[in-house]
């Protein structure tokens, strides 16, 4: 369980990192916090010729409010985001989700950008990015590119990033007023990868009806997915328990064949999608009403 041999570079700027990625196109891998990449190297499931360590690039670890939203530098450690007063106060959904990522010892090193770029289908941050309509910013040979979360997650461990691009920032917009949210997941033990998880956001109007619904399921397919039929069933309706039951059933039926593995069968994950959707909607609705 030792990594194979590779070359190592620690660029000081994003431009230098991009130049290295161009020189070694297809054979280089970016190292951020290493909490996913290092196990893959130790198990020799990844064999890059060059590791480009972006941790020595100054100024990529900020957490700040921009235009009412939240801008997080790709190298911000997950633990710093978890402890950020700004995030706790204004972006409680993100705060709640981050506490489900592995363990504090991993979050001390693991980064927000690394988790998004790794794009594990059971990971928390990609699902939150999709649910909050986040925008990702990357630098490549042609300069900066902005990518919507909806276009970013392509398939298992694969994003819209080019091999010569470096993810530099993610922006989370603030939730609109009168919007409730929920983040729920089930794992065998706290800190394990989720078997299934749900992120819900519900807008409510003065009459107690749903003005907007966004429902993201993760751990059930190759990427986090929107449950659009269930969202449509919620729109304009009174937010009441039978509706949450119905939306849960719809979400569970509309996902494609979920993963089946040693941790959980596809049927179990599908049933979890139903139960967790119902729970998430119940919680989001009560937050929206508060």
């Amino acid at each position, binding site marked *: 369980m030792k990594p194979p*041999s590779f*070359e190592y570079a620690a660029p000081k700027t994003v431009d230098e990192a991009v130049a290295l990625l161009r020189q070694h196109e297809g054979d280089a891998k970016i190292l951020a916090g290493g909490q996913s990449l290092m196990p893959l*190297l*130790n198990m020799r499931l990844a064999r890059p010729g060059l590791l480009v360590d972006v941790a020595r690039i100054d100024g990529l670890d900020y957490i700040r409010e921009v235009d009412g939203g939240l801008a997080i530098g790709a190298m911000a450690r997950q633990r710093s985001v978890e402890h950020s007063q700004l995030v706790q106060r204004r972006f409680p959904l993100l705060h709640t989700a981050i506490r489900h990522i592995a363990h504090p*010892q991993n979050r001390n*090193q693991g980064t927000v950008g690394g988790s998004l770029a790794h794009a594990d289908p059971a990971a928390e941050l990609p699902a939150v990015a999709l649910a909050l309509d986040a925008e990702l910013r990357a630098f490549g040979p042609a300069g900066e590119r902005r990518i919507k979360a909806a276009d970013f997650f392509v398939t298992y461990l694969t994003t819209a990033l080019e091999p010569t691009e470096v993810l530099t920032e993610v922006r989370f917009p603030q939730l609109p007023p009168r919007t409730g949210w929920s983040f729920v997941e089930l794992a065998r033990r*706290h*800190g394990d990868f989720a078997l299934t998880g749900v992120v819900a956001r519900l807008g409510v109007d003065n009459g107690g009806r749903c003005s907007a619904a966004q429902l993201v399921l993760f751990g059930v397919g190759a990427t986090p997915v929107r449950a659009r039929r269930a969202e449509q069933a919620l729109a304009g309706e009174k937010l009441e328990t039978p509706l949450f039951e119905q939306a849960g059933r719809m979400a569970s039926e509309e996902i494609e064949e979920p993963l089946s593995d040693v941790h959980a069968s596809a049927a179990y994950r599908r049933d979890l999608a139903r139960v967790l959707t119902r729970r998430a909607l119940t919680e989001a609705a009560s937050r929206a009403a508060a």
Partner: protein
Amino acid sequence: MASPRRIRLKVNGQPHEAIVEPRTTLVDLLRGELALTGTHVGCEHGVCGACTVLWNGKAVRSCIMLAVQADGAELMTVEALAHDGQLHPIQQAFMEEHGLQCGFCTPGFLMSVYELLQRNPNPTDEDIMETLGGHLCRCTGYQAILKSVRLAAQKLGAAQR
């Protein structure tokens, strides 16, 4: 073989310089090059926590960190806890509450608990369990470890008064 790199780091207050292959993990540097064998190698993929050390004051898993990533860093390992043959209060608490049996996982637990109690001298059981959740003990000693951490917090609190 990939080009070796020269790194400088401080471990337990001592400056060190080493020439390492990029693929060398931090735990292998500590154990193999610096002969600090108190840090243990368990699962080697960041799950069991036996290799936990403090990196600039934060508990991290040294089996999924490269030695080159620690260039310029300050590290603390389990060897820094005891002084002049006197156990650190956390170690003393683990001994008194039977927080270890075979002891293989213990160095990692001690370092995570050290970080926890530095940051939060009066942790709730929930705080303690969140920290312990990052470690595996196969002698099934979690309840005893929980008690050890409660006692360690008391001992450290008393020492500071």
